[in-house]
């Protein structure tokens, strides 16, 4: 399938990747080529096939409900672009 400009912009917004308006057409044609390529999958009838989500059908293993972690805020927050009073700062969110 071929993607139009609007779809490319919508996807980029959904993926939170800013793209230069000048590059939208390039993205559109590149992504369309890839989608056309992957559409080869349609050659196979998979109507009655169960999707395989994990390489081997395994079951979830669960852990006991125990607290094993200790406070490492100081170390973790050294990695952060902006912190104050132990909190991560971001531009104002409007709800």
């Amino acid at each position, binding site marked *: 399938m071929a993607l139009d400009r609007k779809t490319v912009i919508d996807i980029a917004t959904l993926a939170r990747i800013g793209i230069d308006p000048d590059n939208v057409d390039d993205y559109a044609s590149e992504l369309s080529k890839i989608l056309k390529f992957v559409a080869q999958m349609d050659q196979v009838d998979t109507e009655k096939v169960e999707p395989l989500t994990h390489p081997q059908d395994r*079951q*979830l293993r*669960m852990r006991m409900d125990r607290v*094993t*972690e200790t406070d490492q805020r100081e170390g*973790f927050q050294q990695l952060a672009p*902006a912190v*104050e009073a132990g*909190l991560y700062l971001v531009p104002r969110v409007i709800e």
Partner: protein
Amino acid sequence: MKWEPVIGLEVHVQLLTRSKIFSGASANYGSQPNTQACAVDLGLPGVLPVMNENAARMAVKFGLAVDAVVNQRSAFARKNYFYPDLPKGYQISQYEMPIVGRGHLNIVVDGELKRIGITRAHLEEDAGKSLHEDFHGMTAIDLNRAGTPLVEIVSEPDMRSTKEAVAYLRKLHTMVRYLEICDGNMQEGSFRCDANVSVRPAGQAKLGTRTEVKNINSFRFVERAIGHEIERQIDILEEGGEIVQETRLYDPDKNETRPMRTKEEAHDYRYFPDPDLPPMAIDETFIEEIRQNLPELPDAKEQRFKDQYQLNEEHAHQLTQSRANADYFEATAGASRGAPKTVANWIVGDLSSRLNDENLDIGDSPISSRMLAGLIDRIEDNTISGKIAKEVFRAMWEGEGEADAVIENRGLKQITDTGEIEKIVDDILAKSRTQIEQYTSGQEKIFGYFIGQVMKATGGKANPKQVNEILKKKLRAHLFTDGP
């Protein structure tokens, strides 16, 4: 036109696990910001989730309690969206395969029983908290809550009034606390409610366009927020307008709902099976073990209270709203010679209102069930009157000890000696000529005056029944011998 509201609720219940759903960080509430957010909760590069078995156990417990299907195979999916308090850019939740399928809860509204369908209940992780104040125009993020286990309970759109919605929510609230899977604290956000609301002309089968009302954080707000939203929709429809499907935020200060502003872009959560977590298998043994250990549930307990203790509907209902209340009642009733009805009266009446006033749970009551039983016994054996008992109750609350000690120390023992009471009555009658005349002339209301005088003279300790009898006898004598 007559309009019919249609309401469905989505309730987020924070599970009382020790650790988080996918990490070993503590799930306690109220710690310093970000001190309980470990590498997994922060979504650091490379970290992976590992499921907490206890969270699954609690979800199954809930499922069994609402007669729901527990799905032996369920799966975790990722719900993808960007938000600063959602560390990984996705929330691990359940989508197509929830752990709990269809079930139901019964509610009673205006004496009528109604069954509310539960569509599903699924496990998911909570997000962190955004603080919008006091950070010089920035938003601050605390991720302590990120990864706390939640069960989201989705009802069918089966409720037709705010009353029913509140009744359902209360029932759910009672249920999760009975099961000890949630502390039910709405203020701290461990029990949160969103409502899907629509209206339609009465009699129409097709549902109207619905809105989702968020941020309903107390029972009082549930009624107001939904009620307000129903009115808003009716107003629009009656003016010929159309309802827009949207998410609205309830503002308790203004008592209004308003559309959320961040939703300008259509949401597309791109759910897909979480590749980090293989499907969850719950086997029959696991379910059976939980079933065996289920506590007696509210409806069953209420019925038993009616049958076993001959309590009336209201008492039985009120006393079974929490396990702690019910346990308190049963302990008191078991330890006291008083009738269960009397015990129920004390708990639902004096004790509850006092607890309420001081914002205490029954577990924190300074008067234990044994102490209350002792008090009731003293009324039963006529040591004190019901009125004096109130004083004893207050003294016990203030820490003056058991009922017997209070009665002793304060000298509150009831006067039951007929001779003594007769003497007091004679004294009073001797000083009350005017009142006796009024009485004998037919003003029977004045009788209360004599009772009051006797009680005043005895500090309320005279046995009221005896006072009554003696007064009547003596006054009757006046009526016939002392007439004008």
